């Protein structure tokens, strides 16, 4: 509507020329609802109650006399109560655009007093203390202008004198040294670990190299063995061949020896045996012949002796009959010789050893004796033979003795 004015929630409508006034104010303040404004007669102005901010940058000196550059933001608004609106309207109604600047300038002075009441440490650390100082330094002044300061935010403190830097220096140095120490420790540890790792690596490399060399050696050994295997087996095979050949040669030699034995030695042995046997036979024959001869001779001699004895006896006794016997006995050697010749002339193979020979010999001798006995029987007719010169006994006994002697010589 044309004459119905409604202020926004953050505005105050100031109507001058109105008859109805709030208190003793020269104008009517309307907030929160609309009202009629008579044209010509009344004039309505709007005062914004919204939040404003003023940036302040100021060189300040703290309680300790340290110069710092402070950049702050003051957040303020026109108070909502009637007094504040009236005060602000009277001062800023035409200057609403430059209100921030104006308030900022005013507040810069307050900022000096605020900072002057604080130490740097408090400014940095104690918000409550700063707020107290803001209240203390600016409240009454701002109330005159109808302004409520909501907050003062110190955005930056320029450390022109280096105080804050120096304040921080010990801590910074301590921190830096701690950092350096930590860094050094870390470096040391890292180096240690690296060295350990390098040592371990070297160790492992050594082990690997040793193992590799071992494997290589083994491989080469096996390869060498494999390479040798051919010649070795060949050598073995040739050795076996040689052994076999040797065995064969040995067997051949033994065969030859056996053959030699069978073909040469045995026949030779047999021949030798034959010859030896023959020689033995001949020897025996000769011996037997000699024996026979000796025996016959001995018998002849004995017979002669007996004959002589008999002759002597007969000569002594004058026995004529013995003379005839004597003649016969004289002929005995010839008989025996004839018998011996008969033996030597015959080529006989004796199969019965010496016994056979003995038998023969005894046979021959027996023949001779039989002849002798016949002679005796022929001579001894009376039966009472005269005793011999030695007086031992009759003749036949003597003959028997002789026979016994002959047999003993024959068997030797």
């Amino acid at each position, binding site marked *: 509507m044309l004459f119905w004015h409604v202020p926004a929630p953050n505005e105050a409508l100031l109507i001058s020329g109105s008859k*109805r006034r*709030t*208190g003793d104010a020269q104008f*009517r*303040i*309307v*907030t*929160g609802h609309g*009202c009629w404004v008579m044209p010509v007669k009344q004039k309505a102005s709007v005062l914004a109650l919204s939040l404003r901010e003023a940036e302040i940058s100021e060189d300040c000196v703290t309680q300790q006399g340290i110069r710092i550059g402070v950049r702050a933001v003051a957040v303020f608004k026109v*108070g*909502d*109560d*009637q*007094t*504040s*609106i009236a005060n602000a309207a009277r001062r800023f109604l035409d200057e609403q655009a430059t209100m921030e600047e104006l308030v900022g300038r005013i507040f810069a002075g307050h900022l000096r007093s605020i900072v002057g009441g604080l130490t740097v440490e408090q400014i940095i650390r104690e918000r*409550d203390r700063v*707020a*107290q100082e803001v*209240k*203390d330094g600016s*409240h009454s002044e701002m*109330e005159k202008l109808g302004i*409520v300061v*909501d907050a003062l935010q110190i955005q930056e403190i320029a450390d022109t004198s280096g105080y804050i830097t120096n304040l921080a220096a010990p801590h910074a140095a301590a921190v830096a040294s701690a950092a350096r120490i930590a860094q050094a420790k870390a470096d040391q540890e890292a180096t240690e670990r690296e060295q350990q790792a390098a040592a371990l690596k070297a160790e492992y490399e050594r082990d690997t190299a040793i193992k590799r060399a071992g494997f290589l050696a083994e491989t080469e050994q096996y390869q060498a063995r494999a390479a040798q295997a051919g010649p070795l087996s060949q050598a073995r095979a040739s050795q076996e061949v040689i052994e076999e050949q040797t065995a064969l040669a040995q067997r051949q030699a033994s065969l030859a020896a056996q053959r030699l034995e069978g073909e040469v030695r045995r026949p030779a042995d047999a021949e030798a045996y034959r010859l030896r046997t023959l020689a033995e036979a001949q020897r025996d024959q000769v011996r037997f012949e000699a024996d026979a001869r000796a025996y016959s001779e001995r018998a002849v001699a004995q017979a002669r002796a007996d004959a002589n004895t008999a002759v002597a006896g007969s000569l002594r006794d004058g026995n004529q009959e013995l003379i005839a016997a004597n003649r016969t006995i004289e002929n005995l050697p010839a008989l025996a010789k004839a018998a011996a010749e008969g033996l030597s002339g015959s080529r006989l193979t004796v199969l019965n050893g010496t016994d056979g020979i003995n038998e023969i010999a005894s046979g021959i001798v027996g023949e001779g004796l039989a002849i002798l006995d016949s002679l005796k029987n022929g001579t001894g007719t009376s039966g009472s033979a005269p005793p011999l010169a030695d007086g031992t006994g009759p003749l036949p006994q003597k003959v028997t003795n002789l026979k016994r002697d002959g047999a003993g010589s024959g068997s030797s």
Partner: protein
Amino acid sequence: MSATDDTDFSPIGVIGRVTVSIPTDGPGEVLLPVRGGTEAFAAWSREPIARHTQVIVVDHTSARSVIVAPLPG
């Protein structure tokens, strides 16, 4: 009209909360529920009052200044 009602408002008896601790010699700040919202008033007290303490307004010296006392109990 109730034009005076919303501007002529007395905060006496209102219970608020301290937002900036009140020293003995200087003002602190209390947040008081007025005109449907909350507004910050400069506050004085006989004894120092810490932040976040409930206080009751016993007097107001100017439009934006009040005297408070700690809420008993």
